[in-house]
């Protein structure tokens, strides 16, 4: 579509060029680029490529990157989840600090946790009461793990020092001492409690 007064100067701005460019860019940016990265990335990092799955005796028991719901006393429990730990409906609570529903939920959870662990509500770490952003946060803070150690040890009838040793072993610090927060992967430490080897 050439402008009448300037002839061929604007030929590149034609609809045909636009349509051809759109098709070429779809194939290049939406086809070739993701295909190459996915192929190369999949070859270089096969374990990560399929979701960092934990395979034990040929069974897939979970993903290192996806938290699970735990209720039994013999396991460490994870954070509250607005998605009920369903990875297809991931999400946070999106409660504002001023939303009374948030305070009601926190109050109820705090009472439950305090009763279960035999402590005062004021000593329940925040992360154990705050719903994560993803709804599948696989981690809790080391303090939240320590809070649960006695209950886990009692349920398993093992010395609490064994459980504490395991917490120390499974606590990941900040990368290079700088990036990120100290944390414990709940599924991995629970697998260790069950005596299941963790294999990549």
């Amino acid at each position, binding site marked *: 579509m050439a402008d009448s007064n300037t002839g061929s100067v604007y030929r590149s701005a034609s609809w045909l060029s636009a349509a051809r*460019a759109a098709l070429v860019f779809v194939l290049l940016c939406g086809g070739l680029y993701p295909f190459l990265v996915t192929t190369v990335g999949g070859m270089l990092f096969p374990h990560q490529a399929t979701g960092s799955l934990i395979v034990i005796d040929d069974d897939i028991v979970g993903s290192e990157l*996806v938290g699970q719901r735990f209720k039994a006393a013999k396991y460490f429990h994870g954070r509250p989840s607005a998605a009920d730990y369903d990875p297809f409906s991931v999400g946070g609570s999106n409660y504002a600090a001023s939303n009374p529903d948030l305070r009601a939920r926190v109050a109820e959870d705090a009472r439950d946790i305090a009763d279960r662990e035999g402590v005062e509500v004021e000593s329940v770490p*925040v992360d154990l009461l705050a719903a994560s952003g*993803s709804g599948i946060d696989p981690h809790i803070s080391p303090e939240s793990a320590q809070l649960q150690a006695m209950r886990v040890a009692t349920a398993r009838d093992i010395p609490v020092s064994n459980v504490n040793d395991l917490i120390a072993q499974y606590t990941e610090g900040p990368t290079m001492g700088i990036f990120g927060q100290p944390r414990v992967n709940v599924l991995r430490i629970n697998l260790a409690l069950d005596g299941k080897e963790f294999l990549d």
Partner: protein
Amino acid sequence: MNEVIIIYAVTLLLAWPLGKYIAAVFSDGAGAGSRIFLPFENTIYSLLGVNPSEPMSWQGYGKALLKLHLVLALIVFGLLMAQGILFLNPDNIDGMSWDLALHTAVSFLTNTNQQHYSGQAQLSYLAHTFGIVTLQVVTPAAGMAALVAIVRTLLGRSGKNVQPSAGGTVSVGNFYEDITRAIVRVMLPVATAVALVLASQGVPNSYEGARTITPLDQTAEMNEQNIPIGPVAPMVAIKQVGTNGGGWYGPNSSVPLENPTPVSNFVQTVSIVLIPAALVFALGFLTGRRRLAQVIMGVMVVMSVSLTSVAIWSENQPNAAFSGLAADGPNLEGKEVRFGATATALWGSWTTQTSNGSVNGMHDSFNPIGGMVPMVDMFINVTFGGIGVGLIGYFLFLLLAAFLGSLMIGRAPEIAGKPLETKEIKLVCIALLIQPMLILGFSAVTVAFPALTGNSNPGFHGISQVIYEYTSAFANNGSGFEGLNDDSIWWNVTCAVNLALGRFIPILAPLAIVASLAAKRSAPEGRGSLGIDTATFGLMTLAVIVMFTLLSFMPVLILGPIAEALALMS
């Protein structure tokens, strides 16, 4: 705190050489990297049937840009509607409704990536890659192309003033040459490098469908868990480096599959600001006006650090809803343990300064003042800003500051030796004022009809949710107070209007302005000229930005986040 300082430092240190490279890519002739990329680009030009050295007027350039976008919009809209019956759909996902497909297509077409859907459950691999990823590569490249066209038309190369050609029409460059170079030499190489690092950290890379697993605790009433994967890493990489922001999974980079470790979080955070900051340096290299680039960078860093500090402080305060119910600690509602409050607040501020809009925690659950920072960042929208459009937006404020500054020192308004007259100032005013008019206008109508709002939070925060959504749409940001039930015909259609106007007016109006300026005879810059590359003028521009933002939006900030904060304090 060290984490924040290191991330700022690393980003700026990487942006400098990248900016130098980008400037060389768009220099006269074949440009940097031509030995590797030019044969490939020549193939593209022949497939397109264009001559890359053909000059275009600003109208021709703008038309080429708009036409390409319109065709892409139709392709992506079709893909979204029809994905249910097409291939590459292992999880059997249905097509979208017309209004959701419209909003999604426009949202990604405008480099916004506002999402009224949840990707892992509502997009097939076909729509995700061929539709979404295509736009995530092309749209930042289009922004970069427009910026380059504007910069070289106004400021010329090597500091030389542009003089009108004999016929009176001014060439601003060739759109297809600019966008192809931006895609081939900048966006795709940077995204590929980032994608492979993310892949090493655990971001999935597979065309296979979801995996089903049996959870460990049999008493937890969860018999199976389906883990969605896909070709996620290439999308997450381009989403971060392309100021796109739209994630594979609904809650974006808070999801451990999308952002698995502190290392991936570091890389993704740096990627948010990397290219926008590099373009500021590129401006200096491209035009030979290094001082100007330094002053602009200084203003942007001042704005960035000030607002980010407020967000970090706020999120390290306890959430009011937890008071007396938990041990003391930062606000972790909607945040991930592996990142913590500080890294999440940093991300939240950067992602809204750059029109990226990805998140690694839920902004809806930020403390009131912490949640106000992203809103202010998006009102300003030129703290680095989106790729290309950030600097273009800054350029509008710069023109306004030059206009006011010239009047203050009693001279006829001018910039770079060109007289600033009624036509240019009118266009500046249109491009700037349409922002508060649209955001406040649509918000007022929506708040007036509670049936439309879809609020999930009551009271003052409900107002914030509405303001945030329209602000994010117009700023082409894409983040949200995500509790809002925004997949309705009202939200989809009205946001689509804001998205499109918020993208194309701020690109086309400045193109028209520089073409108009370039067609004028320039006076040599002398002792009496306004020095736009001085710290004083930087401060002047900063003051204009701050005043414009406060005058436009202070009332709604008081009605929303400030009222909420005061109510929680009492």
